[in-house]
């Protein structure tokens, strides 16, 4: 066996894990949030971002962080039914909110019509931006069940994808609209 860890001189690490939770500041605030239909209570720092709260407190890692300044749209979630950037919101400011993330769209059941349309149209490649597109699309088609392609383009302006060139995403949203109308507009 090769022992790789070598005893040698280097700056010693501080014992950061000793004592009472030295990392977080003492001013934690209790947040209650309903995420994907499930109630959660957590104590977090006031500056903790909603995206980090979802990802690292609730382990809902489907919400992705792309730019951390509200440009790319990968972190889009539904906050009380409306799309919002989870990288621009503090978790503590959303006490009592209802959040839907990508994990909540279909759960473990059959794909939601929007997800199915993305699958059929090959509207995702690496898939990193996809959760944001799905939630943006669900909100949009709830407001505009029968959009034309220009309206779809406008609706997707705030989400970026670097892989697909958008054409298949536009196809998918168009197809999803048809699927949802056929189902009776249930989003």
């Amino acid at each position, binding site marked *: 066996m*090769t*022992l*790789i*860890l070598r005893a040698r001189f*280097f*700056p*010693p690490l*501080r014992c*950061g*894990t000793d004592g009472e939770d*030295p*990392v*977080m500041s003492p001013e934690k605030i209790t947040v209650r949030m309903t995420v994907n239909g499930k109630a959660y209570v957590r104590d977090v*720092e006031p*500056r*903790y971002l909603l995206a980090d709260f979802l990802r690292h407190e609730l382990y*809902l*890692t*489907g919400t*992705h962080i*792309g*730019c*951390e300044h509200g*440009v*790319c749209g990968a972190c889009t979630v539904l906050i009380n039914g409306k799309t919002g950037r989870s990288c621009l919101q503090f978790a503590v400011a959303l006490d009592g909110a209802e959040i839907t*993330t*990508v*994990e909540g*769209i279909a759960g*473990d059941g059959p*794909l939601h019509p929007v*997800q199915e349309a*993305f*699958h*059929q149209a*090959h509207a*995702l*490649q*690496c*898939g*990193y*931006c*996809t*959760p944001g597109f*799905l939630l943006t699309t669900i909100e949009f088609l709830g407001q505009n069940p029968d959009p034309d392609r220009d309206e779809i*383009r*406008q609706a*997707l*302006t705030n*989400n*970026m994808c*670097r*892989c*697909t*060139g*958008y*054409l*298949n*995403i*536009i196809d998918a949203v168009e197809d999803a609209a048809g699927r949802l109308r056929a189902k009776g507009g249930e989003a």
Partner: protein
Amino acid sequence: MREIEDFTLIGKTVLRREDSYLLRGKAQFLDDLPEPKNLIHIAFVTSPYARADILSIDAAAALALPGVIGVLTGKDLVDDIKTFAPVIELDGYREVRRPVVAVDRVNFVGETVAIILAETPYVAQDALDLVEVDYDPLPSVAEINEALKPEAPVLHQHLGDNLIFKSGFETDAFDARFAEGDVVLEEEFRTGRVTGAMIEPRGCMAWPDPIATNITLWTPTQIPHIVRTAIADHLDIPESVLRVVTPAVGGGFGTKAHVYPDELIVVALARRYGRAVKWVQDRREDLLTNAHARDHILKLKVAVKNDGTICAAYLDVKTNCGAYPNHPYSPTLEATAAVRMMPGPYKIRNYKYDVCSVTTNTAPTGAYRGTGQPSAFLAIEGMMDRIGRRLGIDPAEVRRRNTVRPEDFPYVNVIGVRYDTGSYLPSLERGLEIIGYDAFRKAQPADRMVDGKYRGIGICNYTEVSGTGAPGWRVRGFAKMPGFDSSRVVVEPDGKITVYVSQADAGQGHYTTFAQLAADRLGARWEDVTVIEGDTSKTPYGTGTFASRGSVVGGGTVIRCSEKVGAKVRHIAGYMLNRDPDRFILRDSRVHDRDDPDTSLSLREIAETAYSMNNLGMPQGEEHGLEATDYYDPPMVTMANGTHVVQVAIDPEDGRVQIERYAVVHDCGRVINPKIVEGQVHGATAQGIGEALMEEIVYDTRCRISKRPASTQSAASRARPRVG
């Protein structure tokens, strides 16, 4: 007659299996992976200066912050990590090594000067501003021509100047051939600096076992095996104790096909402290430090006959290396790609080039979509239009007259690259037909003004190097670039199939397409095939997924390997049924006797024999197990080609460009999965439009990025490619 029914799956759109977890948010990208306990989060203190001496670093305030467990500087790491450099064996290349954390001197904005080790990412970020670094700023240079001036600051003293690479080539009697032209045209072309800007920034996590003997590095890379070799080399550890795994990768585009200093750092720190170490990049670091690309100056001079045919071409290319050579390619990657690929689909028989790469106080440049090729084609295609204008010949016709013709194949181009086949003229004609070229030209007024806008059509023909094998890399000096890729195909005891491939998917759909190939060649059900890649402990060695090599080399090895296993399947079936193996065809995960439709065996039954799960024994001379390993090294390169024809309108008031129609004819050879290929073409075209019209990283006179790349192209932006 073939032993397998021809192409039951190849060429069919099979919907992607990776969608099932990506659409549900269940994919595991780097920052989604479960974190080990006692994890150290690191963050990098970066230089705000483009060139400066580091006088002192005071970390006391950072260390006093609760949750900060250490601050390391470059000096602390010099014994752990060798200075970092690619291995390039090419005349004219001069080696430049860099410390992975700057020691005395920084050479670009964003270069790491210290590392924060902390209990949480938030604390690590807090501590960044508490590290006081005393710099002595020095004169800096960002632009190629400025860096070549005698008075320019020299980045790497041992070079004496800023030329890191210089090379040239010229065919016999070039000057005499050049003199035979009726007309000489010359033009300078420049390409802006861009970067991949994947929606997922980079990051990595090294996770040692409890006694820090074996370390697993999770990193979203396109080249896991090359990363492992580079880390073992620079940390002086055996490769066998290091495992490199790629989680789901949120886009690569070449930017993630490099070995980066942070990958060496997290492994070194994990070894040191016996704890897992994680770093996640933010967008600012992505734009400041991930490999940039392009930033080329190309001067093209051609001698042309009066009929528009090129007698001879001289290309002078200067590329911006950035502050240090990228790993593993060095700046020779873009430089040699540009000069080697410029002849493209055109019959240029007399050719001379000079090429150099120049170090500047900017982020290192490296691989990105096509490397030097788009720059080269910008130059030659721009020249085709200029030839047409000078001689009064339609630009499409100028291209026709210079193109390698169908009867010329196999064609060896002027630098010795063999084009076995290609559809250069048919692709051009098809592109012109889709866009309605002749009718457009006929109706086009002399001043190009239609309905208040200038309207015109641009044409670009191109060849595209794909599937570069070892000879193709060696000829360009890449001494440590394997060139081959490999696979291991296993029929498991239950008759299901596992395919291990040396590549690493970044969204291209390998888990679907490689399963198509294996299923097709093994006559198996697609659902029965599992593809595993991006893990050096599971897959045999290989080069990785970049430079348009995935399907050619990765797919090639899967085909070859599956056929090897298929031969063994038939051999064992022949033994079990006491019949000639050549009688069998493979279909639906069964072996059928083609002359006796009632007789068949399932793959499972054959596997049970192979794994000694019955009393049949094995045929004489055949080993147990039902698998094969294959290493596929393609000869030189394979050459794809295509044509883009675009109709644009330019607003004379504000110069805005509106793409009105866009035709792509891309010949990638045999299509494995049409929908996936279509998606690749859409995405590449959109990035190309972005590069042409919207994106650019601009350094100001103090070598700071003054303009962020407009990777903000969205579905509703003015550029709306419609691909036909």
